[in-house]
């Protein structure tokens, strides 16, 4: 234990005395938040392309039309149902709302008017973020009609859709990105230590290899928690990004994510001989992950053929987990799946790392 703490202290000193490491770990993600927050500030929300087909001429239908027009998150396109549904099939709409003929009449007669919401269930994010918003709007309109019972036929859902601003969407993603970088770039340090024969020199002392690795991992976990605290704090103070969920769940995912990406780092370090080859290798892994994991923009903005790539990346799941916890975004996957996939990556990387890792 004493040796373990000594090593942690040594890692700390090594870390705190290197400006570049400090920058990449703490300043870089904060810059990201500040820059993106400024770019997408205030009213610049994420918008969804929504098709609206009103096939009823009643004044109630007209009122519904107007209230849908007022939703900031929608970029409404009006049309008939056939052409709008075709646009949905073509991927030009995220959802289509059809107010059927006879809608006004049914309500006037004290019955329920039918509103159909069409969406592509394979576009899970859109579907699960957007559909609840539509439901919420319809529900609000319904209640505004004043008289109980409800006049519009929609199914009650427990899903709660928040009005996600871009920065709300981005902050958890940047947290996930920072943790990925922390883990993967640990590989560069490992390669340097191997190249400088630090690992070999330590191997000539009674120090156990497990203590050596545990101290490295332990130190990175501490840094990850500090990083998370800093990112959440800055996002909250500057842009009012909330932390709605459970802190323990958040910490749990921070630790699990760090472990998974550290394992990936150790695995990658087995395949790079020198610092010069390690750097490009890490870059070539982290950049695609950064941009294909829905960290910076929702995944439905990606072409469908990239879905399998995204679905394979651990960062997709870590980002989704953080978004669900922090801003209660609609899940891309359930937290159990997020947990499982990250744990799976951890185990696989660990196995490969143990098999191929070299001490010199």
């Amino acid at each position, binding site marked *: 234990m004493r040796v373990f703490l000594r090593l942690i202290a040594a890692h700390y000193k090594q870390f705190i005395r290197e400006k570049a490491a400090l920058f990449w770990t703490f300043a870089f993600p904060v810059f990201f938040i500040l820059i993106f927050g400024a770019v997408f500030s205030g009213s610049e929300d994420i918008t969804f392309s929504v098709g609206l087909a009103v096939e009823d001429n009643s004044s109630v239908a007209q009122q519904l039309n107007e209230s849908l027009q007022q939703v900031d998150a929608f970029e409404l396109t009006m049309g008939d149902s056939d052409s709008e549904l075709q646009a949905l099939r073509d991927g030009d709409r995220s959802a289509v709302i059809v107010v059927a003929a006879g809608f006004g009449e049914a309500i006037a007669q004290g019955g329920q008017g039918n509103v159909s919401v069409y969406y592509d269930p394979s576009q899970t994010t859109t579907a699960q973020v957007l559909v609840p918003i539509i439901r919420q709007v319809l529900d609000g309109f319904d209640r505004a009609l004043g008289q109980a019972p409800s006049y519009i036929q929609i199914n009650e859902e427990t899903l709660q859709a928040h009005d996600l601003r871009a920065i709300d969407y981005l902050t958890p993603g940047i947290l996930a990105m920072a943790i990925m970088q922390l883990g993967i770039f640990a590989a560069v340090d490992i390669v340097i230590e191997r190249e400088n024969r630090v690992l070999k020199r330590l191997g000539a002392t*009674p120090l156990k290899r497990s203590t050596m690795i545990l101290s490295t991992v332990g130190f990175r976990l501490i840094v990850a928690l500090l990083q998370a605290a800093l990112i959440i704090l800055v996002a909250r103070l500057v842009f009012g990004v909330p932390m709605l969920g459970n802190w323990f769940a958040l910490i749990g995912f921070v630790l699990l994510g760090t472990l998974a990406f550290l394992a990936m780092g150790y695995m990658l370090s087995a395949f790079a001989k020198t610092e010069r080859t390690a750097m490009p290798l890490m870059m070539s892994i982290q950049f695609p992950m950064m941009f294909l994991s829905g960290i910076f923009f929702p995944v439905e903005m990606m072409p469908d053929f990239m879905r399998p790539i995204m679905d394979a990346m651990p960062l997709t799941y870590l980002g989704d987990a953080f978004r669900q916890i922090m801003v209660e975004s609609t899940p891309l996957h359930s937290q159990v799946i997020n947990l499982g996939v990250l744990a799976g990556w951890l185990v696989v990387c660990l196995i490969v790392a143990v098999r191929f890792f070299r001490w010199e």
Partner: protein
Amino acid sequence: MNTVIEVKNLRKHYGSVKAVDDISFSVAEGEIFGMLGPNGAGKTTTMEIVEGLRDADSGSVRVLGMSIKRHPSKVKAQIGVQLQATALYPRLTVREVLNLFGSFFPRRVPADRLIKLAGLEDSRNKRCINLSGGQQQRLSVALALVNNPRILFLDEPTTGLDPQSRRNIWAVIEYVRKKGRTVFLTTHYMEEAQRLCDRVAIIDYGKIIATDRPDRLVSQHFAEEAVEFEPEQQVDIDEIRGVAGITSAIVENGKVIAYSSSVPRTVSALMKFAEGKGMELTNLYVRRATLEDVFIKLTGRRIRE
């Protein structure tokens, strides 16, 4: 005398390269044992196998009476190791690194004592990255002494060092020996081996070709003295070998090294030889044979730096 290192029939091949080819030797407690040979001769590989940092293909190694494979941490607690070209934690200070390494061992020498021994008093709070090459090497040797080891392993401790650092490291080695500790070092400096070592093993192409005290190695192989000169023009080495008193000779980079059993006869015969050729012999001098000459005699080449 206790035997503290015993190596028998050690072999290590890398593909078709026989890095260590059936090496056996033993080191007694309290002696400075040197392995002398050119780069790539197998010195480092042999040493690292003894230190437990590499596995041998076959053969046995016992250190302090124990098998390093079976009791690695017991052995490692009692030996001190300096590796070639290690840059340890660049942003820790000299004192911090010494304290860190000290914490790996049950018993340890205070950092300040090691700093003084290594002559690093003025650099104790300097970060390792800011040390000169010589200072780094002295720190590396000090780190090897942090557990007051019974055996000190030094792999080319003075290669490429400035004279001051070299003298300091020699002084440290002699101090360690005075304390009754054992030193096992590798070097390709003849002068270093001759000056420091109680016994030297000459190693080439993975084999030990001679082991003895340095003076005995010389006297065993050479009753002769060395005559060196630079002829003005190319000479046929066989003609030189025919000169009176010369038993063997080589030519390298225009310099002739001839071994003579009778220096006066050889020198006057050489003068006549040169006169006959109408040339002069420059930089002619006579010296006693050294370990370098032994190496040349045994291998037909010089050790190069």
